[in-house]
């Protein structure tokens, strides 16, 4: 695992991705810090980070797009498969390397509150609390990016989908105001999702019966719940969309609350997408 990690780290710095990523992150966080903390003389560093999160929509795909897609394109994934290391080790090694690349600019940013504290009153616990959450948010988005990179051998495609997915997640709370609040609307969306899930299962397992079974059972469950208590579905969709937002949970930290459930949520999302990445790589051997 460490071999893969070291190798990935080296190639990140070799191909400039790490430098570009770090530079852009520092520049934009620096601009916000200048405007808020220096020009407007606000004492809380949290808002700087709060405003910088949208940067992830561009920077994270930039960092993660080549991680696995490039291996596949150059056929070096065959080497990784034939080496005595497991797919999990490969994915974890790559992920840790990207995390390390992400930590470099964060280490510089971590100095800012200390510097500002020299010239005024800065409440450090909330500053570092949000910086920690900023790291977790980035870490989970990197996991998403690595997963997307494992789906294609085209870096551009991986990056494009990455930007779209992260932006969608970024705006999901504001978008949730526009989706149907009524029970019927929710049920309609759930049924469509059940069918889509069935199609996905069929695509992955090539097992038609299993796919139809999954769809059928889900639709049956929805029908039963609807029949018993239709009020359950009211407002469900916007609620779920708001819950899924990784960014929304970050603002809790910005507002000065250390939210443990959010920490658990970030870690879960990270683990889930890394697991999916391993599965995606494993699946390729079964093609």
């Amino acid at each position, binding site marked *: 695992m460490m071999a893969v990690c070291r190798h990935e780290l080296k190639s990140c710095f070799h191909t400039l991705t790490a430098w570009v990523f770090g530079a852009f992150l520092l520049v934009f966080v620096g601009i916000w810090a200048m405007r808020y903390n220096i020009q407007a003389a606000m004492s809380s560093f949290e808002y700087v980070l709060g405003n910088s999160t949208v940067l992830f929509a561009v920077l994270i795909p930039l960092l993660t797009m080549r991680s696995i897609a490039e291996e596949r394109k150059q056929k*070096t*994934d065959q080497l990784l498969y034939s080496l*005595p290391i497991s797919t999990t080790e490969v994915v974890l090694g790559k992920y840790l390397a990207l995390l390390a690349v992400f930590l470099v600019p964060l280490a510089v940013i971590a100095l800012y509150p200390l510097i500002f504290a020299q010239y005024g009153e800065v409440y450090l616990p909330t500053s570092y609390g949000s910086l920690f959450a900023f790291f977790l948010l980035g870490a989970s988005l990197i996991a998403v990016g690595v997963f997307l990179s494992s789906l294609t051998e085209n870096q551009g495609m991986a990056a494009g989908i990455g930007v779209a997915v992260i932006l969608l997640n970024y705006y999901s709370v504001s978008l949730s105001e526009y989706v149907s609040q009524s029970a019927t609307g929710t049920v309609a969306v759930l049924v469509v999702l059940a069918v889509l899930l069935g199609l996905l299962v069929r695509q992955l397992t090539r097992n038609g019966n299993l796919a139809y079974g999954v769809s059928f059972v889900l639709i049956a469950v929805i029908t039963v719940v609807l029949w018993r208590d239709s009020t359950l579905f009211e407002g469900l969709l916007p609620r779920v969309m708001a819950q899924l937002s990784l960014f929304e949970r970050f603002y809790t930290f910005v507002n000065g609350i250390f939210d443990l459930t959010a920490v658990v949520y970030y870690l879960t999302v990270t683990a889930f997408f890394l697991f999916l990445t391993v599965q995606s790589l494993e699946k390729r051997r079964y093609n």
Partner: protein
Amino acid sequence: MIQAEHLTKYYGDIPAVVDLSFTIGEGHVYGFLGPNGAGKSTTMNLMTGCLSATEGRVLIDGKDIFENPKEAKRRIGYLPEQPPLYLGETPEEYLKFVGEAKGLRGTALRDDIERVIQETGIAEMRRRRISALSKGYKQRVGIAQALLGNPRVIILDEPTVGLDPIQIIGIRDLIRDLGRSHTVIFSSHILSEVQTICDEILIIAHGKLVAFDTPEGLEKKLLSPGQITLVTDADPEAVQAALAEISHINGMDIQPQDEDNLITVQLNTDQEDIHGVSRQVFQAFAGAGIDLLEMSLKKASLEDIFLELTEDSAPEEAEAGEAVGAAEAAEGGQPAEIAATSTSTETAEEAGAETGEEENAV
């Protein structure tokens, strides 16, 4: 050393390898031979754990590649069809990564890198970027990678494809050297290559193992009858009468007279000592007072066997053409023991008049 049991691999509904079983012993060089698309690469990918089998299993030194992959893969060095190289790195950096991934550390790693660099002869390229290396050197770096950690089995997928003749000779020598200390398995669709380097040959066609033997054993076991071609200006009936005496002739085909009043006679014989038959023919003609203008001999070679085996299961003409192409490519490497070594066989001719003509032109 390697045991493949009932290996089967389907890509969707298309079978690539069907119920393949074989056992490969310790030491020696083994050749996987087969026309393009026969399932050689798939078999190798299955053996190295790069692909999962639909059915069946592979044991490397008793370790199952799917159930105990780490232990099994430690015993294998694999060079896929396209060398898996990180083009932005130097061979040294690349080998360092592979060595570390194989669990080598510190001086052991440095010593092993040094060893494989020497063995594959890439010393003067060690600090250049891999993207700047020629195809032959890239291939060598790929082989160096397979040799790291001194695995007992080295599997090379078409290591000589796309190289120039001098590079091909270099790689072949390397494979032969490796065969002294490792079990080497390599695939090729070029027959002469397999014939010159391998101790044993596995012929694969359409995902099935059709033969597994030594080159000599294959020739012996599957020997098609030898062929003698005669040209004379005598009367066909007289020729027939003269040849009727000779034993071991189990087929005769007399072509009618052409514009120069010559007839061509094709004799098939099952006798291994083809010169014994040709001597009798010569004496029979001399005794009957027939002028023998030309006589050429052709012994069945591995190529014929290869064609025969791979075509038996391949009725499509296109595939036969491919196999013939491979046989032609192998022509240069054949020892020219007999004056006329036309390679046409009955099977090749059956495959289509077109391919037959091509062969005769050779």
